[in-house]
């Protein structure tokens, strides 16, 4: 046997990404890069009023234009396509991909154009004349709850989509409510903190807008749909259901996807429309969203008002909490819309052992773009409400914000911990994360720096926040799609490895992390491993990438499938080497007998034998290809502590973030470099929310922040250098001990930055400031206004 170089273990190493060579050379293929012979282009005519009846729609000028193939109004689309389905068990109003009679938000599609190129398609859409009988619009959810000035869906009086779901202490699984414990907590309270807080609406803003290519082939009766999606398998199921095709007749492909952040989970009307119109015309079609369209047509995130009441003793012990949530979900329910705010309820315990919690949730329709998942999806809102309240409690009691937290932590010996909200936290050590953050940030020194700056008249503040997040989304009971993930690992005849994953990435680097794992598992060079994803024609089953589940669920499935192949390969090797399979070592491209390294075969030799097994070892089928579904027994609950320092310009009110220290515990890490990148990105979006991002509507329902000129996506200049540290508390719920990290940065950052701003302005008597930290708002406080 030839000797091989010893391969280093790759799991846990900063391995350079295998995706990058194509992406840094402009050789990635995103949806808009696809061309199919005969392909036509789609444009949508969208409503420019937020609420109104379509009085007339004249498509004749558009149809007469050279290069226009067809124009479809909402009425014609309704002949091809039923109402849009949702993925939650809540009641939902009739929602059409293209409105036929009433429009309920500015940007809702009213007609579809198919034309020879995108310029003509756009011209033709502009040439469609629509007149509306304008109805009153409502954009304030608390006003909408009164049913004034308008009811958006007749079947939902007072615009209530989901009304007052109580949850927490004293609520039985059947929904019977007993207030004794929560009432007692507040009766015993020595101090009560009460605050209304707004977790404002955000625009996800993946830099690649959405896009679809739909290709129905009449000869074969099959549909191929390429889409900028986070979950091609969910897309396939939905397209099949809506077109009447079987799932075997639909192939969904997520090619290179330019970011998603939750906004590309939903299956959108444009995807259904392109599919059914392609089928109707028998032609391939492309639609690519432009940015102005994305602002109104792609789901928004957050937009939840929280009324928080916190009952405590004067020593800082929290006795109880009430959290009343009002979620503005916009004009319609989308795939997961109604479920997102329920995650805010689920995470209301945060990192604390709170004896009594009562949450209620009201979801309200308004004349705005629908909301759905956005990075964090309900958990940043929970973190924000609870952590802001804890910060206010610390301030009220004159305690250090770290010490109030410490006093109320779920202690590390209590895991697994059943929360008041019904979650079972898998593992945690919150005090260790807090202590590391205090040590690494130099908390005591920072306080001195702050005080010295204040003595000079500068407005400098410190903020601290804990977070815990529900990740590794599954199990199947929690997702209408099923909460598992799937992988098939194949050792090819030449000893190279190909593996599929249903966790379809859009920047997460799964091609790298998953290859690291298989390279270690089989003892082969990473260059010999290829990870396949994003194509339901190749990846037979899958759910997708969201809820920080790629590694914790998808990685676990890959690991299990790899283990099955390895076990089978060991049997072939044992036959070749006349050894016991349990005595074999897979290392550095060889399979050899433990303690006798000279007795071995190359990995490729054993692979070749498995495909031409002469003689076939008894009890074995030829070949080396195995699949696994991994169903997690529980979610994972990563956690951490973030600390920030912020300065506000006394003259202009402009805030500057001076420092951000993040301690995150995502369990075991496969590639720390990629994990850092995920945390950086989450921090950027959380800091963006805290400081500069906000979707603002006019009273008549026009999105005022409808372009990148008005909506502030953070730039490089907006951030200090982030300081990252981690603790490692593995999870017991999957074989990797990995918890998930994609969303973490959005959780701790918002409350810790707002806390720093409140601290900076504490001399002006302010107790809470709603996000975003607009300079005008801060300037007014400095001038003596009280928010």
């Amino acid at each position: 046997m030839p000797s091989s170089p010893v391969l280093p273990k790759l799991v846990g190493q900063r391995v350079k990404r295998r995706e990058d060579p194509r992406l840094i050379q402009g050789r990635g293929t995103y949806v808009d890069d696809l061309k199919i012979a005969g392909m036509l282009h789609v444009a949508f005519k969208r409503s420019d009023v937020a609420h109104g009846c379509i009085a007339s729609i004249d498509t004749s000028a558009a149809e007469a234009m050279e290069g226009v193939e067809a124009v479809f109004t909402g009425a014609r689309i309704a002949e091809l396509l039923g109402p849009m389905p949702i993925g939650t068990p809540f009641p939902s109003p009739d929602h059409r991909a293209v409105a036929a009679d009433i429009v309920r938000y500015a940007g809702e599609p009213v007609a579809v154009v198919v034309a020879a190129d995108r310029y003509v398609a756009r011209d033709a859409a502009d040439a469609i004349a629509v007149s509306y009988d304008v109805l009153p619009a409502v954009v304030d959810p608390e006003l909408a709850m009164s049913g004034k000035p308008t009811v958006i869906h007749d079947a939902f009086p007072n615009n209530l989509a989901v009304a007052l779901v109580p949850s927490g202490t004293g609520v039985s699984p059947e929904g019977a409510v007993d207030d004794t414990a929560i009432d007692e907590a507040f009766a015993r309270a020595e101090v009560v903190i009460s605050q209304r807080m707004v977790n404002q609406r955000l625009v996800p803003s993946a830099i690649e807008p959405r896009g679809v290519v739909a290709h129905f082939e009449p000869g074969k009766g099959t549909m191929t749909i390429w889409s900028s999606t986070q979950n091609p398998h969910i897309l396939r199921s939905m397209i099949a259901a809506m077109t009447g095709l079987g799932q075997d007749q639909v192939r969904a492909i997520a090619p290179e996807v330019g970011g998603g952040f939750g906004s590309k989970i939903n299956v959108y009307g444009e995807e259904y429309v392109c599919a059914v119109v392609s089928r109707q015309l028998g032609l391939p079609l492309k639609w690519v969203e432009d940015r102005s369209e994305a602002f109104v047509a792609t789901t928004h995130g957050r937009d939840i008002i929280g009324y928080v009441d916190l009952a405590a003793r004067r020593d800082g012990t929290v006795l109880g909490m009430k959290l009343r949530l009002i979620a503005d979900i916009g004009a319609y329910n989308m795939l997961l819309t109604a479920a997102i705010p329920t995650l805010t309820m689920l995470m209301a315990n945060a990192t604390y052992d709170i004896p009594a919690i009562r949450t209620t949730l009201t979801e309200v329709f308004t004349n705005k773009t629908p909301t759905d998942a956005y990075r964090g999806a309900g958990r940043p809102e929970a973190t924000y409400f609870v952590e802001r309240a804890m910060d206010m409690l610390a301030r009220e009691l004159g305690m250090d914000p770290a010490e109030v937290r410490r006093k109320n932590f779920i202690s590390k010996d209590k895991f697994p911990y059943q929360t008041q909200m019904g979650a079972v936290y898998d593992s945690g050590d919150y005090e260790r994360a807090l202590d590391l953050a205090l040590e690494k940030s130099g908390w005591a020194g920072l306080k001195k720096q702050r005080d010295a700056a204040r003595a000079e008249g500068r407005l400098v503040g410190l903020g601290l926040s804990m977070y815990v997040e529900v990740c590794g989304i599954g199990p199947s009971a929690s997702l209408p799609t099923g909460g598992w993930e799937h992988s098939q690992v194949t050792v090819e005849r030449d000893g190279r490895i190909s593996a599929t994953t249903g966790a379809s990435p859009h920047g997460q680097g799964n091609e790298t992390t998953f290859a690291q794992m298989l390279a270690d598992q089989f003892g082969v060079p990473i260059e010999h491993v290829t990870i396949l994803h994003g194509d339901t024609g190749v990846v037979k089953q899958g759910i997708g990438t969201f809820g920080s589940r790629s590694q914790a669920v998808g990685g676990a499935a890959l690991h299990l499938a790899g283990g099955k192949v390895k076990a089978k390969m060991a049997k072939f090797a044992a036959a070749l080497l006349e050894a016991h399979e349990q005595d074999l070592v897979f290392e550095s491209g060889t399979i050899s007998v433990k303690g006798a390294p000279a007795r071995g075969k190359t990995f490729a030799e054993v692979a070749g034998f498995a495909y031409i097994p002469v003689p076939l070892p008894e009890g074995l089928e030829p070949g080396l290809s195995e699949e696994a579904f991994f169903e997690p027994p529980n979610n994972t609950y990563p956690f951490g502590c973030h600390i920030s320092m912020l300065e506000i310009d006394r003259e202009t009110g402009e805030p500057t973030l001076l420092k951000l220290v993040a301690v995150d515990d995502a369990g075991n890490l496969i590639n720390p470099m990629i994990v850092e990148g995920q945390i950086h990105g989450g921090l950027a979006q959380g800091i963006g929310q805290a400081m500069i991002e906000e979707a603002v509507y006019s009273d008549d329902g026009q999105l005022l922040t409808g372009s990148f000129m008005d909506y502030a996506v953070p730039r490089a200049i907006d951030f200090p250098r982030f300081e990252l540290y981690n603790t490692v508390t593995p999870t017991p719920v999957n074989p990797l001990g990995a918890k998930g990290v994609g969303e973490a940065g959005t959780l701790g950052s918002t409350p810790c930055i707002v806390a720093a701003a409140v601290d900076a302005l504490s001399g002006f008597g302010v107790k809470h400031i709603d996000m975003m930290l607009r300079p005008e708002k801060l300037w007014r406080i400095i001038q003596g206004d009280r928010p």
Partner: protein
Amino acid sequence: MTHVSITVNGKARKAQVEPRMLLVHFLRERLNLTGTHVGCDTSQCGACTVLIDGRSAKSCTVFAVQADGSEVTTIEGLARDGRLHPLQESFWEEHGLQCGYCTPGMILSAVNLLNDNPNPNERQIREGISGNFCRCTGYQHIVNAIQSAARKAAVAGAAVRDPRAGS
């Protein structure tokens, strides 16, 4: 239709275009150079950044006819003779990208930045790429990548090469 003659990645290209055709669409749809991306319609995001006569420009804000007679470099023209440009190398080494959609424009902006200022400090780097949005990375690894490329060029005693200057 108007005739244009544009040198793209060292190759002379002649075409008839509608006067309203954007340079980015000319590159992507007529020349199939799809590495240049479109991320917005108001010239904020910078995903479409290319070099025109060696200077960075947002190709969604330039009509193809305005580029007539110019030399355009896109991401596809940055590597030479199978060798990555130092900034491409450093983006790879420093994990300066995730989804990759902003990356071509970001790298070309960084080329322009280092041509103007071969030794920028962190503040200058952050300002220099503030015309390019990245929603994935939080920019820190991008800043590291640009610093790394600048450092390596300094050690090698040469500025990061102008992509027009051949290999």
